[in-house]
């Protein structure tokens, strides 16, 4: 759908084919100009956030960075399409630690992730206790992001079951990496979601960036596509080009509509890039991989959807906003050592044995 380079990885690989007929906008692309500019705006917003957080890490204002630059073309459409809110009639999201594009698209501001990476007392997700991009937003049904990879595939079984039991409108959305699909939890999600008569409304996605820290896909997998693992379970599967935001938006929309209508699961694999490596663990340096944002901008320029000037203005505005959030967070208090026992149990019931 995009340029020649992207087209080689496009939806032709999908087992579930797109049903959407091109509703060609004035640009000749299958989305309207408004949709295209919104997606672009959110992708830039997400990228500027991550690059600001990398700077925060590199200047020593954070202990560790891990995040999602390179996954914007998939993550942003996912966040735009999620039924955001609290309660059973909204989607439950069990995300991995490269999920900032999805949350930006859902409306996350800049100060929240920056307080998190800078471990401030004001960090509403963890209170200064966890790494960057380890969010929790109960008001949006966003489950806590964990460092152990793959566990979300098991935990999501429960939210999907509760939704099914109540015949609720919401579905359960799972994201994770290709390396994490080697964990048993991924198999658990396939087994539990596909039981005859007990199918679960789950969108099981794998963002395949071809890496698990330093271990390449080919060292970890024999299957051509991770999503093929859904086939023996008679699950609907899809392989999409997650570097193409238009394809992602359309295909995610179709698969989510299928799940909402049927209550049955889908396994979707999206090929994505990993632009800054795994995390602080391998240096946080820019890699020579396809940049979905660059490619999308080339397309939007070619189709006269945006101008160079407008793109620069969007980037400058978000860059300033991100910098301002860093400055603000920098002046905020760090968590007090005395808070370590807070929330050991619900309502901070004592958990310190010295006080029993």
């Amino acid at each position: 759908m995009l340029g020649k380079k992207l087209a080689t990885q496009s939806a032709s690989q999908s087992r579930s084919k797109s049903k959407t007929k091109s509703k060609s906008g004035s640009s000749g692309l299958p989305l309207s100009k408004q949709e295209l500019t919104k997606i672009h705006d959110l992708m830039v917003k997400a990228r500027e956030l991550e690059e600001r957080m990398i700077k925060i890490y590199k200047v020593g204002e954070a202990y560790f960075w891990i995040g999602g630059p390179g996954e914007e073309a998939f993550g942003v459409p996912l966040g735009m399409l999620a039924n955001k809110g609290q309660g059973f009639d909204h989607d439950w999201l069990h995300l991995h630690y490269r999920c900032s594009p999805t949350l930006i698209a859902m409306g996350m501001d800049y100060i929240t992730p920056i307080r998190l990476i800078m471990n401030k007392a004001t960090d509403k997700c963890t209170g200064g206790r966890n790494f960057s991009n380890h969010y929790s937003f109960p008001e949006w049904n966003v489950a806590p992001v964990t460092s152990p990879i793959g566990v979300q595939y098991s935990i999501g079984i429960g939210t999907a079951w509760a939704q099914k039991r109540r015949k609720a409108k919401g579905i359960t959305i799972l994201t994770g990496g290709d390396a994490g699909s080697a964990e048993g939890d991924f198999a658990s999600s396939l087994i539990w979601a596909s039981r005859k008569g007990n199918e679960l409304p789950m969108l099981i996605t794998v963002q395949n960036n071809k890496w698990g820290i330093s271990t390449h896909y080919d060292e970890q997998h024999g299957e051509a596509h991770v999503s093929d693992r859904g086939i023996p379970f008679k699950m609907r599967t899809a392989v999409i080009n997650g570097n193409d935001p238009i394809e992602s938006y359309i295909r995610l929309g179709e698969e989510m509509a299928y799940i909402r209508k049927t209550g049955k699961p889908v396994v979707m694999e999206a090929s994505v890039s990993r632009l800054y490596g795994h995390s602080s663990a391998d240096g946080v340096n820019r890699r020579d991989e396809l940049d979905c944002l660059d490619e999308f901008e080339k397309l939007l320029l070619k189709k006269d959807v945006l101008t160079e000037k407008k793109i620069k203005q969007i980037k400058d505005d978000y860059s300033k906003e991100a910098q301002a959030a860093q400055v603000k967070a920098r002046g905020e208090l760090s968590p007090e050592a005395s808070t370590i026992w807070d929330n050991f149990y619900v309502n901070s019931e004592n958990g310190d044995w010295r006080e029993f």
Partner: protein
Amino acid sequence: MANMAQSIRMALHYGEKHLGVKDIFGQDVGAPMGGVFTATQGLETTWNTPLDERGIVGAAMGIAMTGDICVAEIQFCDYIFNTIDLLKIAGNTNWVTNGNATLPMVLMTPVGAGIRGSVYHSHSFESFASRLPGWKVVMPSTPLDAYGLMLSAIKDPNPVMFLKSKALMRVRGEELIPGEPSDEKELKAMIDAPVGDRSNWKAKWPKLEEHIVEIGKGKITRSGSAATVVSYGRHVLMCNQVADELKKEKNIDLEVIDLRSIYPYDWEMIKTSIKKTGRVIFVNEDTEVTNFAEHLSYRAARELFYELMARPKVLAGKNLPGIGLHANLEDASVPQVSEIKEEVISLLQEIP
């Protein structure tokens, strides 16, 4: 009197009817079996899961995350070990999110030896469980306490691990559960599934009442001043027997404490008793190296050193890779009445 399996079943029924329990699930938990120890027979919200412990624990966490209350079961604690990182996450979820996400879930699992269960049906888990901060861990020794602790576990907004001694599942108590008919046969006819075809069978539940055993509170099962014996689960019954024998044979009064909760635990009860007796032994069947009782013994030595008339003792299971099937092997691996008695006498004979 109800046995422990029946009391757990009645507690779960009370939970379904009055406390909002939406799901009770695990391997063979649903009809027709109702659990390998029959603790979930006849209930309305039970269902069978795949034989996938990680899926069971993960599902419980997800259900709890939505605010629905569930009770999940791992069929034997011997098979819980491949879920250990999920258990860590369940324990730390409220803490790591600074109170954003709570997991009101109960995970129950049979523990311990005593049923000739061989290598993989004899494990204990309470010492591992005590190293899962954020969980509450309970382990009853009587049907009435099982009922009361299960209701507390269901009501608790935190993840609670309910450890049930395998060897106690058919043991009857000495106290009626509120609402339980006094005739055992009547109770059995009401809530035990028949042998054979169960397709049309439905339990007839007695009109049960609420009975709460507060998590973190122990119980003195024998009062005395000669020495303090601290235990939980099935070994409470053995310690009671030792106390009764020593009273009868030597007119020695032991104080036996049924801890009932592993974490949080009733230190005030232990401390008060040790101050009275000056001697303490901790008895359980989990393996002896880094045993939970070592923490209690350490604390007794550290905080009550000048109150003690003898060195604190821990009597626990041998640090073996497993429990051998033959009775000679099992009995030599975990504390038996005779060994407890010998150790108590030795404790009493120690001259300060």
